[in-house]
């Protein structure tokens, strides 16, 4: 029973649902389910955030011919906990003429936006919290709320540096949302539905990245570039460019509020990577080659959660690789890239994808 749980979580969730609706009244059952799901996600958020911060530091260290943190805990696994404790002890420096309500509200908005997006990720069969028919549309809409948090942080800090950083970041995120949405639209056209479980189901005969040959590949590249810009990372991180304007929009935040921004950035990276795997790389589906039955059987042996996490880890590694190799783009070059290069490519790509999907010319 335990071994088959790993492959399909739906019997487990059904059993819990039955148990709860038998013992409590329907209202209470729903509330308890919501609380359980919320707690699981909070735990997941915290653990993955901790792990990602450490992973970034070790990946960047290996690229730079050095070791990275490896003293606190075995191979440095407890390093982020030590950092978190340090941040908790720091003094929350109050700003004199800052708008106090907005100043305190801004980190929460950023965290809430990324939290709402995590709820829609399909981790494995049966481990899918929010699964309605406008899945991907919901995700894009909800992740746009993060911009509000950044702009509020910059404005309410009452500091020139923060304001410049927030304005730059706001312009950048709003422009790149277009490219993200259009490149994901290519896959929606190919698979015929916005619901995330349907998109995964349509990839059972092969992942969209090679079934949709050229246009899907172009859409994948554009999505990678646009989403790195969305999360303020990599070559597009001038909102928090350390060598130009101290720390950009979160200059005036210290202690646990800074930890929120920091954590939200890494979780946004996780969200962006998981949607790349869901739409382009087949989500939790294993790697099958048509006709090689023994090979497919072996691939089925690995649980879907592991497939999903492995693919996400690969995309996260790509995003980190970008950051540590390339210099930063200037703000006007960044906007030129979006409006003059990515957007036209995206629009032409959608035309091609629509044509291919109509003529059934994909694999």
């Amino acid at each position, binding site marked *: 029973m335990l071994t088959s749980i790993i492959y399909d979580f739906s019997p487990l969730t059904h059993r819990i649902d039955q148990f709860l609706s038998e013992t409590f009244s329907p209202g209470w059952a729903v509330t308890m389910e919501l609380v359980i799901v919320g707690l699981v996600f909070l735990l997941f958020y915290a653990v993955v955030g901790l792990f990602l911060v450490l992973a970034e530091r070790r990946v*960047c260290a290996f*690229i*730079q*011919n*050095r070791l990275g943190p490896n003293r606190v805990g075995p191979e440095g696994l407890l390093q982020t906990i030590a950092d978190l404790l340090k941040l908790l002890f720091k003094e929350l420096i109050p700003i004199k003429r800052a708008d106090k309500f907005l100043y305190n509200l801004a980190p929460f908005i950023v965290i809430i936006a990324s939290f709402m997006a995590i709820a829609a990720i399909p981790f494995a069969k049966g481990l899918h919290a929010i699964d309605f028919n406008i899945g991907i549309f919901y995700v894009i809409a909800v992740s746009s709320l993060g911009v509000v948090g950044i702009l509020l942080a910059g404005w309410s800090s009452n500091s*020139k*540096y923060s304001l*410049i950083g927030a304005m730059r970041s706001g312009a950048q995120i709003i422009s790149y949302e277009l490219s993200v949405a259009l490149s994901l639209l290519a896959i929606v056209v190919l698979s015929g539905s916005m619901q995330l479980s349907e998109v995964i189901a349509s990839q059972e005969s092969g992942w969209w990245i090679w079934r949709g040959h050229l246009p899907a590949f172009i859409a994948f590249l554009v999505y990678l570039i646009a989403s790195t810009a969305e999360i303020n990372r990599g*070559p597009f*991180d*001038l909102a928090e*460019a*350390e*060598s*130009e*304007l*101290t720390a950009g929009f979160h200059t005036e935040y210290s202690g646990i509020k800074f930890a929120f921004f920091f954590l939200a950035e890494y979780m946004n990276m996780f969200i962006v990577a998981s949607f790349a795997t869901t739409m382009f790389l087949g989500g939790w589906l294993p790697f099958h080659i048509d006709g090689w039955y023994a090979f497919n059987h072996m691939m089925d042996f690995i649980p879907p959660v592991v497939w999903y996490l492995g693919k996400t880890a690969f995309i996260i590694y790509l995003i980190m690789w970008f950051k*540590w*190799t*390339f*210099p*930063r*783009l*200037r*703000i*006007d*070059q960044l906007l030129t890239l979006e409006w003059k290069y990515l957007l036209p490519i995206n629009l032409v790509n959608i035309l091609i994808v629509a044509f291919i999907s109509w003529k059934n010319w994909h694999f």
Partner: protein
Amino acid sequence: MTEEVKEIMFREHEEYMINMGPQHPSTHGVLRFEVYLKGEVVTKLVPHCGYIHRGIEKMCEKDTYPQIIHLTDRMDYLSAHINNEAVSLCVENALQVEVPERVKYIRTILAELNRIASHQLWWAAFGMDLGALTTFFYGLRDREKILDIFEESFGSRLLHSFITPGGLMHDVHPNFQKRTKEFIKYFRKKLPEYDQLLTGNVIFQNRTKGIGILSKEDAIAYGITGPSGRASGFSCDIRKKYPYSAYPFVQFEEKLSHEGDSFARYQVRIEEMWESMKIIEQLVDNIPEGDYTAKMKAVLRLPEGEYYQRVETARGELGVYIVSTGEKFPYRIKFRTPNFSNLFIMNKLASGGKIADLIAISGSLDLVIPDIDR
């Protein structure tokens, strides 16, 4: 509205001032830039130096000539040997002392190694300023090999006080030649990687091409020497125009460029690294045997008069001007430092550009702040 009224309204309502203050990750030292901005565009830039003024020239007035050497190390600490060589050559020319051939060869090899080390650090910091954070580690990793050569012979990695009036403090380690040849072989393989990582990168080229164009007339008028001046077409290499030490015995080219933008300054420095390796290869196998110093008196007294000596450091022309009244201390010593002249072109180059361009320009000019303030 007249132009004057518009100007006043602009200055009061739209222009704002930011201090890229003394503690800033990208000004490479303690230097304050008062930057006046309109939106994202820089309108005026006022540099304020003097935060690390230590009074070196005044301290030299109570030191004998061998004791001045340890202070000159600390001016432009990235080309310490070349600074020492400047003062030593000035004193030797004043006393009309001829140094042995071995000393000349070793001094030139050390100066060129120092030039490569300084350019490696410049490349590391320039990449880091622009956001490519791995270049910092690659540049410093390769620089460690040169610092190992120095540590074996002199005992210290950065500030050596090794080249003194009369020759050298002591002889170099027997392993010096072997290690230098190994380093040349190693670095010839690594320098093309620098090109792959940064020079050919489209993002880097967009950040530096056409940014901060310095015309040749401006370079001559402001006295911008060194690689920054050579990138604008100003042919000012002291090693070619007024050769000293072993430079008359070697063949090398002076690399010029005519664009004058940040990318040209970058290219000139990378090519200078190749030329320095050529110079070292020509000298390292042929170091003549002999004394490592000439016979000097215990107490050096320069005859009355004024003496000037110029050398080419990694950043430009360093001039040493000694006024002596016959005592064992100099009456006045003045250093014409390259970074002091290079700093004041920043206003002209950075105005009209964006903040990000300011960082690219100051990185490509390669300023070392203690040299500005002495």
